[in-house]
């Protein structure tokens, strides 16, 4: 990941930059590849400082664009969120902490309201509809053997039974005993299968990220094109 450079840099400062980036990477990876050490701690603190400073600058920039500029432009309504924003800092003063309740109410209220109202449709109703929709003939997506003429009833039954068992596992105020027990145990196995597939996809993600870091070393050393 050579930031916005299409070819190997020629400007000495840019070259210094990619070598410093390489040094910092190796400093961080000295922790797993070797052990915790001063060079690792130096890189660790460098990153904490960088991300804090840049985080503040970016947030202040967004704040200026979305609040200060409209305010200067005469829209005094924006004074309210700015004042409420300062009220957040009363969180640090135990005695006056109640002041921070109002900005937090807006923060939580606005995002919760959105989430709750819009959640049932895609996350519950669509999922039920999708489970009880009979497979179309010849649908490759579901088919155990692509293009089976009658559609993939095996997979349909697998998902149907699996959804019922997994949902039963998540009954929280009923003990999993008696007749319910085998169903919840089966439910737990379906959940483990899902988590296994999830793990397989996570490995792909993590290894792609690490591969890109390995590729970066070869790029800085000039062994592969940028």
């Amino acid at each position: 990941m050579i930031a916005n450079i299409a070819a190997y840099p020629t400007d000495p400062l840019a070259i210094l930059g990619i070598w410093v980036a390489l040094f910092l990477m190796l400093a961080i990876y000295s922790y797993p590849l070797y052990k915790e050490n001063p060079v690792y701690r130096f890189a660790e603190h460098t990153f904490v400082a960088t991300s804090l400073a840049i985080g503040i600058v970016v947030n202040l920039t967004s704040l200026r664009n979305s609040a200060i500029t409209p305010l200067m432009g005469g829209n005094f309504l924006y004074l309210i969120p700015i004042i409420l924003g300062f009220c957040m800092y009363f969180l640090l003063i135990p005695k006056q902490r109640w002041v921070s309740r109002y900005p937090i109410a807006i923060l939580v209220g606005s995002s919760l309201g959105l989430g709750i109202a819009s959640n049932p449709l895609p996350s519950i109703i669509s999922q039920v509809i999708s489970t009880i929709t009979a497979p179309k003939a010849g649908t490759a997506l579901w088919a155990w053997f692509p293009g089976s003429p009658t559609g993939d009833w095996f997979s349909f039954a697998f998902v149907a039974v699996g959804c019922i068992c997994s949902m039963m596992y998540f009954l929280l105020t009923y003990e999993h005993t008696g007749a319910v027990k085998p169903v919840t145990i089966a439910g737990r196995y379906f959940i483990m299968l899902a988590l296994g597939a999830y793990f397989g996809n996570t490995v792909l993600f993590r290894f792609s990220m690490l591969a890109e870091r390995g590729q970066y070393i070869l790029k800085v050393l000039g062994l592969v094109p940028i």
Partner: protein
Amino acid sequence: MGVWIILDTKFIALLLLIASFALFYAYMRLAKGGMKIKVRTFPAVAAIPEAIGRAAEMGKPVYYSTGMGQGTLNNQGNGPQTLAGISILGYATRLCAKSGVKITYFTPIADSLPLVEETMRTAYMAEGKPDDFDPTTAINFQNEQSPYLTASLGWIQREKPASALLFGGFYYESVCIAEAGNTIGAMQIGGTANTHQLPFMIAACDYMLIMEELYAASAEISGNSDVIGSLRGEDILKFLVLISLGVGIILALVGNTSLIGLLKV
């Protein structure tokens, strides 16, 4: 769309929401009124005293974290998990205060810090040791995942905690922390509702709360009748979903799609 209802979106979604709220409210009132609703037992919760006892025997500290949680309590996917983790923190801190074990809490969530400090201070006071509480044991990392992680890994390697308790909205830091804990042989109990971290935490932790079990466990610990009441409401909704699945599957087998049509109103 029904003429007399001028609705922006699907009627069924509104119906499900109203039914849910009605159920939640009803069972919260019943739970408040003394109806005994028992949350099922979780092995992970029963293991917390064992983890603290292990720390006391070994004279080692306990590492506690509620994870990245997208850096804010206001994130509605992770906020509830962070809060559940903080209420379990209260329980764990009381056990630590009782047995003189040092517990250190790491988080990148800036706006959760005051609540954490208050929870820990209340726990120490409840055990009659208000001055044992040291605010610097609650360390925050400014909404940034990577600094929080590198500091946690460094601390775990340096302090070698006996137990690591990881309850909350975790992201990829859970793998690193749980693996670092494995390296030094710490006993680890985890709990998250983030599906992407579940495989790792199940693989690396000794005990695990999966998805909603985290909320149920924190409600059981804090004895919060409102939450327990709404959990029963959730279970009733789960039965509703199960019934519609059962009926829908039978209808699908006979090629009838009337229920699907109903759900798409």
